[in-house]
């Protein structure tokens, strides 16, 4: 009997590992996370001033973010970076000087130059160059500011997407949506602070880590919602289980979890409790906000939405609805932009045009709809891919390819931002005559993040989270706010 008791005690002691001990310092944060996910407590937290660091460092112009990520990396040379010189070099062999010391994902040997596969015109008072592949978007050119010389250091989709969303090319860091939700909390107590919507048939190459919470408490991870079927998997009550029973079940599980927390002090238990509560509240709130059937007909016409389908258009409309309901960060991924030219669907003059058509109306509608509702002032909209594409035509395995495509290119690509206090009609950064590398205004991924955080009221150098013995930042040890934009 004694032996059994001793064994039980030992087992319990073993359960409290060094990790738990180390994490105890985080426990307070886990508790706060719970607090911030439950409405009103946020106010108590911040107005008591005990955790002033979780407030913006200065009043930010943006209060929420809609991030439109074109997964696969759209070609800047067919959309925004107009290079007439490249047209003159079309079909000529690429000079060796450009290839020296460079590594490409698929280009081998000496590729040919590929002129722009679209016609360009200047639009609006700002004179922004936008190609004819985006006829609707070009009408709102003056709302938008372009970063034309963004560079990354990754040339494969997965790492590059991770870098774009977590500031780091390896797994394990929190995504920018998690950082923002961690910093600003959620406004609507019945909805997650960070919602993810995907379209194009696939999730991004980097998987769900691009909306993961890394070392931040997992309440801050993105909640993926679907635009057809149940918006969140298993959100409806199963057959034979009514809402009251569900409530009782959650209460019982919550009681057990709280007991467990009292014993082991694992902050993830608090997160779990919060998530059960959130899931319960979401059962009512999410189907309502995720339902676009009740939107008036002219709104459907504006966005080009078709209820019940998984599409970028539906996701744009949902993004507006979510932001309107106080969701802090809405992350859209649209898959299918990897225009290598290996087939018709990835050819710049075929499949790529279809993708452009699919986003042109919805993203324009999103900006206009946010604007007419008075939401654009405080909503930052960001559009971009994970890298750019080469001015050379891809020659996979050193062979000419039947379709016009471009390889991955990390040195220069275009991102645009609108709303949320971004200066309008600016074009920052310039590439050389063929769009191969930046000649001025070179902008790193960290610079983009620093600027986004700045617009939200955070000094990216002070916005940190203590983990493994040192404070971590979204921008690591780099990043400068692009002053031309804010």
């Amino acid at each position: 009997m004694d032996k059994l008791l001793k064994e039980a005690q030992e087992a319990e002691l073993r359960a409290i590992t060094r990790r738990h001990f180390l994490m105890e310092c985080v426990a307070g944060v886990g508790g706060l996370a719970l607090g911030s996910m439950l409405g009103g407590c946020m106010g108590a937290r911040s107005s008591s001033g005990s955790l002033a660091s979780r407030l913006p460092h200065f009043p930010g112009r943006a209060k929420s973010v809609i991030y439109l990520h074109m997964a696969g990396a759209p070609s800047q040379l067919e959309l925004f970076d107009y290079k007439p010189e490249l047209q003159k070099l079309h079909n000529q062999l690429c000079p060796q000087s450009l290839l020296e010391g460079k590594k490409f994902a698929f280009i081998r040997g000496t590729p040919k130059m590929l002129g722009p596969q679209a016609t360009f015109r200047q639009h609006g008072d700002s004179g922004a160059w936008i190609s004819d592949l985006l006829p609707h978007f070009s009408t709102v050119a003056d709302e938008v500011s372009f970063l034309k010389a963004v560079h990354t250091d990754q040339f494969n989709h997965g790492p590059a997407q991770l870098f774009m969303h977590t500031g780091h090319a390896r797994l394990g860091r929190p995504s920018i949506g998690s950082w923002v939700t961690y910093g600003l909390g959620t406004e609507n107590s019945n909805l997650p602070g960070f919602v993810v919507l995907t379209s194009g048939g696939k999730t991004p190459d980097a998987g769900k880590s691009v909306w993961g919470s890394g070392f931040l408490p997992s309440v801050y991870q993105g909640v993926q919602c679907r635009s057809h079927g149940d918006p969140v998997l298993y959100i409806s009550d199963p057959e034979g289980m009514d809402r009251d029973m569900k409530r009782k079940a959650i209460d019982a599980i919550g009681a057990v979890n709280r007991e467990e927390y009292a014993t082991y002090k694992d902050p993830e238990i608090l997160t779990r409790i919060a998530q059960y509560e959130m899931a319960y509240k979401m059962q009512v709130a999410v189907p309502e906000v995720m339902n676009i059937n009740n939107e008036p007909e002219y709104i459907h016409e504006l966005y080009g939405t078709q209820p019940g389908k998984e599409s970028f258009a539906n996701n744009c409309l949902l993004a507006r609805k979510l932001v309107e309901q106080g969701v802090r960060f809405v992350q859209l991924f649209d898959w299918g932009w990897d225009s290598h030219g290996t087939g018709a669907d990835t050819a710049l003059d075929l499949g790529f045009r279809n993708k452009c058509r699919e986003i042109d109306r919805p993203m324009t509608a999103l900006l206009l709809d946010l604007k007419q509702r008075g939401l654009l002032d405080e909503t930052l909209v960001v559009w971009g891919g994970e890298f750019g594409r080469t001015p050379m035509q891809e020659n996979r395995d050193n062979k000419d390819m039947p379709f016009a495509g471009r390889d991955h290119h990390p040195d220069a690509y275009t991102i645009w931002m609108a709303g949320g206090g971004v200066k309008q009609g600016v074009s920052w950064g310039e590439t050389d005559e063929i769009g191969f590398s930046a000649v001025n205004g070179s902008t790193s991924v960290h610079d983009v993040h620093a600027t986004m955080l700045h617009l939200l009221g955070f000094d990216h150098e002070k916005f940190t989270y203590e983990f493994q013995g040192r404070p971590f930042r979204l921008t690591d040890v780099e990043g400068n706010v692009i002053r031309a934009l804010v």
Partner: protein
Amino acid sequence: MENNGDLLLFLGRWHPLLVHLPIGMLIMAFVLALLSRKKAYSSLAPAVSITLLFGATAAVVASVTGYLLSLSGGYDVRTLSLHQWVGISTALVSVLCWLLYRKPVDTRDVFYRIRKGRFAVLGLMLALLGIAGHFGGTLTHGDGYLVEALPAPMRKLIGWQPEVVTIENVQEAAVYAAIIQPIFRQRCQSCHGTKKQEGELALHTFEALIRGGETGQAIVAGDTLGSELYRRLTLPEGDEDRMPPKGRTPISDHQIRLIAWWIDAGAPNDKLVKEMAQPEEIQPILLGLEGGDTKTALGKEPVLTYEDIPPVKQEVVDKLLAKGMTVVPVAENKNQVIVSAINYPAFSDGDAELLLELGANIAQLKLGGTQITDAALKHFGKLAGLRQLHLENTAITDEGIAYLKDCGQLWYLNLVHTGVTDKGIQVLNQIPGLRTLYLYETAVTPNGIAALVQAAPELKIDTGNYQLPALPSDTVVY
């Protein structure tokens, strides 16, 4: 000083290192002496004298090396002499302390007879040590090095004012006086200023800068690369001519670029930034000089500054929170709050009373989609700090918005899907700061807008109802 040979200077340069030995040891001796006065620690008593012996020896060595270092010159004479004499006194008093604490040779020993006051002497020694140390720090790092880093509220307590020039609008700032001179003041003048003129160079005035120093002109107007000052700033790290010298805070890359930009433009004394050519790489640096993070670059909209006001009434906040409202400060160290009813759609006129109690603390008020009616707005004039007001999707009509004319700071007003009409909105021209007005899904007509715009030309009105034309390309599938 050259005649003294390198060896003495070499020994002198050990001073900054050696000086820390007596500091540690003598403080230790004091701590031991203090503790040994208590019975429980009386066993420590014998350790005092040996610690003092080492400390005093180290102090003497430090004084000698310090003297040798001082011979090399280049220090502010007044601070140097203070440091020197207080330092030597410390060494002497520490020797005296040792004599008082050592085991007496015999009881007629003069030091044995005056041993009663020895703890006081030890205390005096500690005080001298502190003073000497402080002057030493001032010599290496410059005056005010310590307090400069003090948080602002504590600075206020000791009455120290930093010399900080904040630039509101960089284009209107004087290039030399507001941008270049502060760099010199911050990084150069402790050695090239009024107190010291290393290499016979002073940088505290424009004239002194132009005069140059020992090696001639410091700057050649219009020729950055030919300017000695720029050369010294950009020498490789470790070069003995590089400025600021090793051990001092270096000049930042941005500051160097600003100096180069200024010299290239002919090193003008009186020009404003806007009168200078501004190459693209210098623009962000210039913008970065502007103080205050709240500045908006949109230009069309007012600068969103939040002045210092008394804190919110916590008991009112608690009541609002209990109802399910959210109350969040606009930023840390700001007392203005954002109040939202997004989680409390049942918000009605009765609840508005509570808001009024927060008065000028409310900067942003989100009452969209609530049960609020015109009557609740009657006293909104009391919300003197209100900047952004959301009333979309409510039953507000013309009668209600008439009360808003007293909200003097209001610049954003959202009346989407409310009952306002052409007639009612005209009152809004009485809010001088109003910049954006949202009237989507209201009965307001172009005539009403035109009338209001005429009266308030800076107001941006959005009536929405945007449509995108159906283009042939919308349906072409490739």
